[in-house]
């Protein structure tokens, strides 16, 4: 059940009515409605994986209590590593087993030892990376005595399985979400209206921008060998907007609908394509994952406290692990590595925290330089996205090579029965709207909000792509 599907358009109002009109007496009944709705929502993909979700929830709930109650440091450690091992074990089996088995076999074959890997025919449970990371952050925080263990199983279950964030985040923290689910929510009109605005804007990003770009990006990437330089450049450009519209659109929808239930989720995107350097980009892109890795990997590894060598090592580790989190393919690792390379000069020059404020442009030379830095950062990310989108590293290099060697900049007719340039105007319009609203959460609220809402609805209805492409990219992670 996708957020942009008809079934979800029926599901959400039903849950809303049950939540606020039928089971609104206590926080427990409110939470119970949300949990049942969440489990139903998750089972719509594959009911069998519901057991995995419930097991994962129970494991972290139970071990969290055991860690807190352990009388000795050894006991705490034992329970901590027990849950970490099982959590990562699940992730390893379902997400990475085939990758490791295949890579190991290839390595042995390279040494002249002929082996064939024992591959498992496993389906990746949707959202496993997200809810596993929820659970991990929870037990790590208890182990580090940052938070107390949650003794109410219903409240804890809701923290893990809350349907707006269940399958593609944002990756919540217990410190942020648990206090909200532990009190009865009262209806707040302004928050709910904001939620509707954010949901509708997320829908615009998803069906108008991302899904339309997807048909072009797919037509180019899937046939890149027959594409000329112009198409290949545009393919990377379209994919950049596809993945941004797709994932930030999903996040906006998740945050928006959660506001309808009186619950605030962590912001996941903050206009990343207006970043002036790659460090700023990573403070604005998939914020909940970046901050997760910062808090639970980068800082425990020593963070920036050691010498330059340690900083560089930790930077590469965090980017490569972040890439690998996305999927079991060398392309994601390469994508992480490339981003680490982009980050390195900023780190060496100690400029990785130099663009902290919201970007402003004026009609002067300094602003022109700022504009160029935004464009160059965007181009660097586009280059890295080629690795993210390609099926293999070889294909990514081949794709990039053809951009430079083909030298043909004619318009091409794509297999989606469109010309390769046809949606540039739509994307430019989208960029202008985003630029204008870059200090807000979404562009609809404020002056003329009713008119802007109507225009967004009209855009979703008239300009959306529905028959060609529907999936959310991040559901596969």
């Amino acid at each position, binding site marked *: 059940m996708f957020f942009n599907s008809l079934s979800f358009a029926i599901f959400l109002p039903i849950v809303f009515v049950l939540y606020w009109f039928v089971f609104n007496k206590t926080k427990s009944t409110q939470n119970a409605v949300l949990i049942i709705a969440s489990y139903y929502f998750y089972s719509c993909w594959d009911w069998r994986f519901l057991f995995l979700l419930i097991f994962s929830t129970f494991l972290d709930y139970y071990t969290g209590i055991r860690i807190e109650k352990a009388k000795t440091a050894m006991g705490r450690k034992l329970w901590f590593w027990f849950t970490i091992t099982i959590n990562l074990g699940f992730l390893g089996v379902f997400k990475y087993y085939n990758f490791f088995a295949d890579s190991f076999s290839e390595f042995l074959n390279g040494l002249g030892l002929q082996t064939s890997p024992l591959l498992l025919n496993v389906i990746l449970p949707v959202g496993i990376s997200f809810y596993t990371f929820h659970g991990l952050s929870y037990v790590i925080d208890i182990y580090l005595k940052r938070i107390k263990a949650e003794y109410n199983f219903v409240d804890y279950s809701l923290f893990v399985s809350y349907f707006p964030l269940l399958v593609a985040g944002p990756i919540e923290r217990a410190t942020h979400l648990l206090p909200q689910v532990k009190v009865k929510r009262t*209806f707040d*009109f302004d928050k709910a209206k904001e939620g*509707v605005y954010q949901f509708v804007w997320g829908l615009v990003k998803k069906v108008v921008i991302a899904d339309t770009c997807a048909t072009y990006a797919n037509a180019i990437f899937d046939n890149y060998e027959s594409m000329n330089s112009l198409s290949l450049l545009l393919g990377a450009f379209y994919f950049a907007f596809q993945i941004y519209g797709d994932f930030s659109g999903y996040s906006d929808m998740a945050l928006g609908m959660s506001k309808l239930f009186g619950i605030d989720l962590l912001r996941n995107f903050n206009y990343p394509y207006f970043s002036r350097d790659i460090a700023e980009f990573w403070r604005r892109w998939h914020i909940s994952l970046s901050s997760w890795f910062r808090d639970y990997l980068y800082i425990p590894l020593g963070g920036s406290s050691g010498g330059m060598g340690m900083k560089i090592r930790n930077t590469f580790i965090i980017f490569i692990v972040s890439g690998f989190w996305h999927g079991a393919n060398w392309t994601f690792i390469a994508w992480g590595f490339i981003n680490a390379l982009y980050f390195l000069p900023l780190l060496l020059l100690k400029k990785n925290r130099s663009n902290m404020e919201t970007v402003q442009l004026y009609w002067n030379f300094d602003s022109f330089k700022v504009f160029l830095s935004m464009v160059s950062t965007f181009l660097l990310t586009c280059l890295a996205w080629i690795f993210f989108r390609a099926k293999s590293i070889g294909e990514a290099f081949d794709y990039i090579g053809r951009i430079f060697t083909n030298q043909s900049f004619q318009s091409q007719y794509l297999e*989606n029965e*469109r010309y390769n340039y046809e949606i540039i105007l739509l994307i430019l319009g989208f960029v202008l709207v985003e630029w204008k609203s870059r200090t807000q959460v979404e562009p609809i609220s404020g002056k003329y909000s009713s008119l802007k809402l109507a225009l967004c*609805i009209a855009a979703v*209805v*008239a300009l*959306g792509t529905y*028959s060609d492409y529907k999936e959310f990219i991040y559901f596969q992670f």
Partner: protein
Amino acid sequence: MKKFIVFAFKTLIVTVLIAVALDFIYTAVYLNSSNRGKIDYIYNSKARKYDVVILGSSRANNHFVAPMFEEKGLKTFNFGMSGSHLFEASLMLKLMVERKYVIKNLILETDLNLSNEHQAEGIAAKFLPYIHQSDIIKEHFSKEKNFKQLYYIPFYRYVAFDSKIGFREMFFNSIHKKTVHLDNQGYYPLGNKKGNMKNDIRALKPIPNKYYQEIKQICVANNINFIAIMTPMCTNTKGLDYFDKVKKLYPEVHNYENVVLEDRYFSSCGHMNDTGARLFTARIIKDFFNN
């Protein structure tokens, strides 16, 4: 909460009004278009006269060289459409009859498309802009499983088939941007393509097809000479006995599957190139129109 319910209700009303307004605009544009494809070319026309009308899938569209009929003095149009089934062919003929076309001969490509009675969604969608204006189209779609949504929900059909009749197609219709579909009296010549010349049609079985029967009945009722023809496939096709099965089920269908054999006359296994199509058409003209 009361304020929110009012807000949600207003948003819902605005959404419905937008859908109704867009539906009206899109439909108005399609009602004024006649140079984008064969369906709007028929729908927005009146009483044409043809000696020969050709219907069928791409195996009609790419195989019957309409200008060769014209050279013989036969006013001809090839209404074959790539990807279409007999569901669409039947509806096109119904629309022609409703528009009082005078047709002397109908050539129907009748082979692989006999194996199913489904609509070809990508093609059938192009009739949908007219569903509220035409009882014939409405009736033809009335047994389809998504008919109620398509007919009663404003703008739903444009959303459900956005790649075929959505914003882009509507926009091009509004500026009357021409396509190649109507060039060469509807015939679309194919060039030579490299690749494996092979096909496997063993899974296909001809069935008693209601749309084929419909077409035959319309021809009888309107005094149209009905010519059903099977067209060539490359020799490296597994399951070529399909054509014998068709002949057994429908003895009136003329089997021309094997009149063009060599791979050099094919663009792909199921489609002849322009040279092959000309050889084939010459044979059809000789056999049926040589008086």
